[in-house]
């Protein structure tokens, strides 16, 4: 089995909040993250599979790029996640929750040709990332 990783970037703004809490409590827990601000997100999508004996690939990287663009980059790049990118109108856009949403959007699209989604790594900044390998 071989794992390949494709990288993508998108820039988006967000803030963190729990709508059931007061503004004071949100500020206390989330600190600066409670204020509207943005990040250059860096996404690494890893796909695992067997190498096809004829074409020497586990999947077509061009197609992977297209799927990532269609599912993640196009809808989120230069958007305000809380306001413009469901489910983040109701789901708090922490790096953990955004990584899980990336997984959800890519898993079915990639599972088609024998290859499977292995890992999503999302960097919110160069000093903070989340790895997600699916539920369970």
């Amino acid at each position, binding site marked *: 089995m071989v794992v390949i990783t494709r990288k993508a970037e998108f820039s988006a703004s967000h803030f*963190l909040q*729990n709508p*059931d809490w007061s503004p004071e409590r949100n500020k206390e*827990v*989330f*600190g600066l*993250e409670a204020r509207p601000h943005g990040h250059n997100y860096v996404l690494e999508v890893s796909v695992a599979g067997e190498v096809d004996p004829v074409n020497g690939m586990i999947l077509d990287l061009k197609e992977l790029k297209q799927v990532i663009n269609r599912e993640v980059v196009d809808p989120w790049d230069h958007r305000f996640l809380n306001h413009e990118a469901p489910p983040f109108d109701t*789901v*708090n*856009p*922490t*790096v*953990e*929750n955004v*990584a*899980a949403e990336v997984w959800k959007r890519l898993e079915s699209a990639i599972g088609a040709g024998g290859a499977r989604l292995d890992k999503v790594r999302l960097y919110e900044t*160069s*000093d*903070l*990332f*989340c*790895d*997600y*390998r699916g539920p*369970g």
Partner: protein
Amino acid sequence: MHEIGKRYRFSASHRLHSDEFSEAENVRVFGKCANPYGHGHNYVVEVRVEGDPDPATGWVADRARLDRLVEEQIIQRLDRADMNCDIPEFGELVPTTENLSIVIGRWLQQSWAGAFPDGGPRLAGLRIEETPRNSFELTL
């Protein structure tokens, strides 16, 4: 299961040298890392934490608590420190970055329950960059 990695920095000096070796052996084994007055690095330590996000915050681990723990347990001890002199663990243990990762892992494990008393996040490991070209990973 989610795993987050958060990176922190400290600058410290060390000298690789073992009393078990003669001076010639120290030079042969450790090379310029055995030079008598030591030398320094800008270290990066990446702390890995795993768990399920808290439904109230969407976080695997509270960032402020993690930052405070790392500040108290790692940065205050190691930033602008001479490891061989200032860190009791390196009285006899050679401060290679392999050993440093084990020492830091122990500091974090010993203080983890105090920082996260409600359970939840688990310390999954850490990765230390001694220089941008050398890194050391410890799985816990």
